[in-house]
């Protein structure tokens, strides 16, 4: 399937793309558009204002996608808290990792093209998933 979002991706769009590929559509192809009018008709838009898979109420797009696709994995919801705080920064959650991850991704957005950011950040989010998965199973943070 084809998925479209705004170009110059930051934390929310990067995390959404990772989530889509990992849990919804392993073959996902991503298109980055400068203007919402350029979204291909056969693509599913995400993190674009007025799209279904976007911010709704207090939720950032990552949280919206978890809800719309009934993804209830608590590890994904823990990552959602980080993405939410990095993106929205409204102190709804206690996620001290957010600021660091946000800066890392903002730095990547200054040096790399959107496709490259997805390549680099995929393993970062895989690692975060593994970390919080082990933490939940162990009842403490892994070494």
């Amino acid at each position, binding site marked *: 399937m084809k998925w479209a979002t*705004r170009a110059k991706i930051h934390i929310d769009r990067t995390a959404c793309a990772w989530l889509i590929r990992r849990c919804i559509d392993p073959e996902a192809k991503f298109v980055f558009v400068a203007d919402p009018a350029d979204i291909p008709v056969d693509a599913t838009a995400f993190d674009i*204002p*007025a799209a279904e898979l*976007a*911010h*709704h*109420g207090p939720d950032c797009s990552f949280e919206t996608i978890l809800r719309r696709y009934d993804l209830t994995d608590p590890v994904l919801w823990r990552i959602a808290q980080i993405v939410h705080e990095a993106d929205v920064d409204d*102190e709804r959650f206690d996620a001290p990792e957010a600021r660091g991850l946000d800066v890392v991704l903002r730095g990547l957005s200054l040096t790399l093209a959107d496709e490259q950011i997805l390549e680099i950040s995929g393993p970062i989010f895989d690692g975060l998933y593994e970390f919080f998965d082990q933490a939940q199973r162990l009842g403490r943070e892994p070494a």
Partner: protein
Amino acid sequence: MSADIEWVLLSYRLPREPSTPRISVWRKLKRLGVAQLGDGLVALPHDARTREQFDWIAAEVEEAGGTATVWLGRPATARANQDLADQLRQARAAEYRQLVSQALQALRDGEDRAAARRRLQAELHRIGRRDYFPSAERALAAEAVAAIVDSDDVTVRGDDR
């Protein structure tokens, strides 16, 4: 310098009731530190982030049954442009000055210093996120918060000020 600023504006109308979406929008605008130009018209210096924040709020307004448009533009005169920038700078400066007095208060009160420092650092970060023009007050506030150190050093650092 300020005369070159381009602004992103949000004009919006929301039904008076229910009040929840109104409050949510109002809180978000406050957190962004917008300049209030009129009833339902707010502005921020234009960059990718401020533009995106207004886009989201516009979508939220429409979802709540209101109408909203995001605009790009600048006042017709350099003077008005400067005044708008000054207005925002002064609003942040006032917040920073308040933070400085809170920091001094925390030192005087003998409040748990680590807790006070965490609380004020969070506040400093919050203000920093909506601070679009550098001001001397920002550095003073950062310095005042950094001066809240463990009790051993407090007298020395406090006396410096």
